[in-house]
């Protein structure tokens, strides 16, 4: 064993830790304990986690160590502790979706993405905080408390995968799983200064992911750098027969795209992503990153993507409609919260749901039910599906010319806690750059590209064509090589 203190273990990247574990320099239990101690000291303030499974993680660490020693586990991430968003089912651990309505729900089955991680020898530390049912951009709608941004506890971590991003950023976990329905991996990654990928729709099985908008949801990894993120993405990607929308891809080798060479890579910057509402500091950092890539040999030009303003109403119509149906199963019959007093069946439904869901979830269920209801289906829902088709066509046109679309992840850096929820529409507008990607099923990632004067991280948004993760990974990796990794003040060495 090396003479490593917790701090220096936690500062390793996930892949470095994996290597040290294999070299018998660090034990799996040692790494796990380091994370658990970090959680104990930091999570009182941060609240990245809803559930921390100390005993389970330590037991798993021993078991994994044994299998590594026996040569059974050889994955680069074998033995590396991970955190999992609380809408992804891990057998035996609560899966609350940060909602009172699932406050005591413990799935008896495994999400395929979680299973894939267990198969490579990941040690699950616990379940991370999120916006309730992934509906939100700040992790303030959680029924289990607000997650704070590790860079500044007065700021939100973004959302909905705010807990996963804060945990990775603060050293509570080496990497994490999040889910992205309209930017829920990329936006908090941007706000927390970590790297997150939303892969092409269908790349990671949705089995065991508690659905928000089924046609938009996708699980993805969050890590401290591009290489870790790519290793985790490879680990969780698989064709799953339990998910009808899972795609049988043969090109799941993403690591080989980790080359420091963007020569000839065609990068387009949508003018529409640089207009009104974009914080000048964010714009500056993003354009500087584009310059860097151009200097390294990429061909960068600006173009008009079009339809950007329509993507938001289109997205919210579809997401809320699907959510209204997906969340109807939470009724107090089979699992989760049931109201204490009720008179008859329908009151049981109404009271359980009204008491169990928070305001933002109720808002979306109401609107979603409305846009599907008799007389409004064509005007709203079908109109949105038609718009989606046009959005997809706009991307198709763009990817005929470019390998990568580059822009900001969010119009601003992380807002202060308590400033966003009062005006939902304003909050939804913050998703302007991320949601179209989900409508079109595209892969996209957020990579740190600087900080604003207040010291809050800024994310660079790289979008690829369907199944072309390799292009954005290449751009992200080459860009990452040009700058030093930064850790939040409380965690920096």
């Amino acid at each position: 064993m090396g003479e490593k203190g917790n701090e220096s273990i936690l500062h390793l990247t996930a892949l470095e830790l994996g290597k040290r574990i294999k070299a018998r320099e660090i034990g799996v239990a040692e790494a796990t304990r380091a994370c658990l101690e970090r959680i104990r000291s930091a999570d009182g303030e941060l609240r990245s986690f809803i559930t921390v499974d100390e005993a389970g993680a330590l037991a798993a660490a021993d078991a994994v160590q044994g299998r590594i020693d026996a040569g059974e586990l050889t994955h680069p991430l074998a033995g590396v502790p991970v955190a999992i968003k609380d809408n992804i089912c891990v057998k035996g651990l609560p899966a609350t979706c940060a909602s009172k309505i699932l406050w005591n729900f413990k799935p008896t089955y495994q999400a395929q993405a979680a299973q894939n991680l267990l198969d490579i020898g990941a040690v699950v530390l616990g379940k991370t905080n999120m916006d309730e049912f992934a509906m939100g951009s700040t992790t303030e709608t959680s029924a289990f408390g607000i997650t704070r941004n590790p860079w500044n506890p007065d700021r939100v971590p973004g959302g909905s995968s705010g807990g996963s991003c804060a945990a990775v950023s603060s050293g509570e976990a080496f990497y994490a799983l999040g889910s992205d329905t309209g930017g829920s991996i990329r936006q908090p990654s941007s706000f927390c200064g970590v790297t997150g990928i939303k892969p092409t729709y269908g790349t990671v099985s949705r089995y065991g992911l508690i659905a928000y908008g089924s046609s938009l949801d996708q699980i993805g990894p969050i890590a401290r750098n591009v290489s870790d993120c790519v290793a985790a993405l490879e680990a969780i990607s698989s064709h799953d027969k339990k998910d009808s929308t899972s795609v049988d891809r043969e090109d799941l080798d993403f690591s080989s795209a980790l080359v420091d060479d963007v020569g000839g890579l065609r990068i387009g910057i949508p003018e529409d992503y640089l207009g009104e509402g974009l914080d000048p500091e964010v714009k500056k950092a993003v354009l500087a990153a584009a310059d860097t890539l151009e200097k390294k040999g990429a061909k960068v030009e600006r173009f008009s993507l079009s339809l950007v303003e329509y993507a938001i109403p289109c997205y919210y119509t579809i997401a809320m409609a699907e959510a209204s149906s997906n969340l109807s199963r939470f009724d107090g019959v089979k699992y989760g919260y049931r109201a204490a007093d009720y008179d008859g069946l329908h009151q049981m439904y109404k009271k359980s749901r009204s008491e169990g869901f928070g305001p933002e979830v109720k808002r979306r269920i109401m609107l979603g039910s409305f846009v599907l209801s008799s007389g409004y289906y064509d005007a709203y829902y079908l109109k949105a599906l038609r718009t989606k088709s046009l959005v997809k066509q706009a991307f198709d046109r763009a990817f005929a010319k470019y390998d990568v679309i580059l822009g900001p992840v969010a119009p601003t850096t992380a807002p202060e806690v308590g400033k966003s929820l009062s005006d939902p529409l304003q909050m939804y507008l913050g998703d302007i750059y991320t949601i179209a990607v989900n409508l079109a099923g595209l892969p996209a990632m957020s990579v740190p590209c600087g900080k604003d004067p207040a010291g809050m991280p800024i994310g660079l948004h790289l979008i690829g064509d369907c199944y072309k993760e390799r292009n954005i990974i290449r751009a992200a990796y080459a860009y990452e090589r040009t700058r030093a990794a930064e850790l939040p003040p409380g965690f920096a060495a």
Partner: protein
Amino acid sequence: MANIISDETIEYVGILAKLELSDEEKEAAKQDMGKMLDYFDQLNRLDTTGVEPMSHVFPVHNVFREDIVQNGDDRDEILANAPKKKNGAFMVPKTVE
């Protein structure tokens, strides 16, 4: 606000969604829904004549399972989270008068 949401509409949507709002929440929801629908109405500025509604992004089809029994009796697991149960079944308020 172009979309005025009536009390009846809020009541009706509450029945569809099985949500019961307090009077205060109802007023807020009326405002809120009206505002959001106005915003959604922006889509009407976009001409989608002749555009097919797209429910699935990728042309994936015919994903099937063969007709082979693979699940056994997992009743205990299925009932493990039930708020109320009896005799191996989920217990709910009486459904028929």
